[in-house]
């Protein structure tokens, strides 16, 4: 009986294609993710079960751990209008040069009366040395800023503005500061805003968990 020859086939799998796919995906993910700008103000936000994503374009008020308040005007289309309005309503008398400089600032964390001198410095004051916008009841400058914000958005849909108002606070910031921020909003008839939090899972067995389950069914 003749021997049956079994042809030996190579078990070598061509990995080139797979390798291509892997790196294509890798490139895609790297390019698709937006680089977060390095945060100058480090804030550890509290957690909440809310699942709505924070909007990108926003008027963000940051409360730091040591109780300082910073304002970030994230909407580039209105930033100039807000700053100019603040300049005229508060009588800061900033010239066009200083205004242009102020518009380039990523955030504002100085009392109004110190803005002019800070703008004339050769270097920007680092975040850690800025004293924050005063919010105490006698001199709530944040409410003046919010008034300029409402002025700049006047005529538009109030709801669009409300969607952009964000408060981001460090968990360890004390409550009165948050209350002052709320008062600044209220003084300008802004009653709805959002708080930036870190996502958290809905606890198992809680009421919200149960309703979420029945809704899905």
């Amino acid at each position, binding site marked *: 009986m003749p021997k049956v020859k079994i042809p030996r086939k*190579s078990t070598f799998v061509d990995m080139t294609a*797979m390798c291509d796919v892997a790196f294509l995906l890798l490139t895609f993910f790297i390019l698709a993710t937006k680089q977060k700008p390095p945060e100058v103000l480090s804030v550890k936000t509290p957690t909440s079960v809310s699942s709505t994503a924070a909007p990108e374009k926003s008027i963000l008020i940051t409360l730091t751990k040591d109780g300082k308040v910073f304002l970030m005007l994230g909407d580039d289309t209105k930033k100039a209008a807000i700053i100019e309005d603040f300049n005229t309503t508060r009588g800061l008398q900033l010239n066009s040069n200083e205004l242009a400089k102020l518009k380039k600032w990523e955030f504002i964390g100085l009392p109004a009366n110190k803005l002019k001198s800070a703008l004339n410095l050769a270097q920007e004051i680092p975040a850690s040395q800025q004293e924050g916008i005063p919010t105490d009841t006698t001199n709530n400058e944040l409410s003046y800023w919010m008034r300029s914000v409402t002025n700049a958005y006047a005529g538009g849909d109030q709801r669009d503005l409300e969607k952009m108002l964000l408060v981001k606070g460090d968990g360890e910031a*004390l409550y009165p500061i948050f209350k002052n921020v709320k008062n600044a909003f209220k003084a300008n008839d802004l009653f709805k805003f959002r708080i930036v939090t870190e*996502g958290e899972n809905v606890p198992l067995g*809680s009421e919200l968990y149960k309703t979420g389950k029945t809704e899905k069914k």
Partner: protein
Amino acid sequence: MAEVDTSSGGSHKKGPGVKKSKKLSTRVDLTPMVDLGFLLITFFVFTTTMAQNTAMNMNEPKDDKDKEMKVKNSGAMTILLGKGNQIYYYYGQLEAEKVSEQFKSTNYKDIRKLILDKKNATPIDDLMYIIKSDNESTFKNAIDILDEMTISAVPPGHYAEVDMIPVEKELIKQTELANGIK
């Protein structure tokens, strides 16, 4: 790894005497490279989705003295946020002679059950949680308690943030002293 040697011995195609030149394979084993690629993908996917921030809605009431709401004593639960992540609470209204009985303290872990019990024991129309924050409570405390309301599915309009009254401040101070909370 994925390769098995299949070269079948020395076959003399070119006849005897002709020296066989050894052919080297130009194939590179790409398996480790694929591994690395996917490892990096996994890494990037995980790190990017985790950093997503969420936004919690806040609705503030308009301060209007004429429109102050009356709350039924039977349906009210007052939650006081103190320092050192402590919570104090009482039901209904504080009565001078029964204060020590009414005024109780708890923490953020146990408050969920208390909120839920109150919710289940009260007709929904009467239900009202009154949240008052002490000047030494933190921003996190205020957010956590609002989050607890959402977790226990308390409908909006049945909880409100109110300023603390001096009697409550005094009580918190006394309890803190007694419990040695700094």
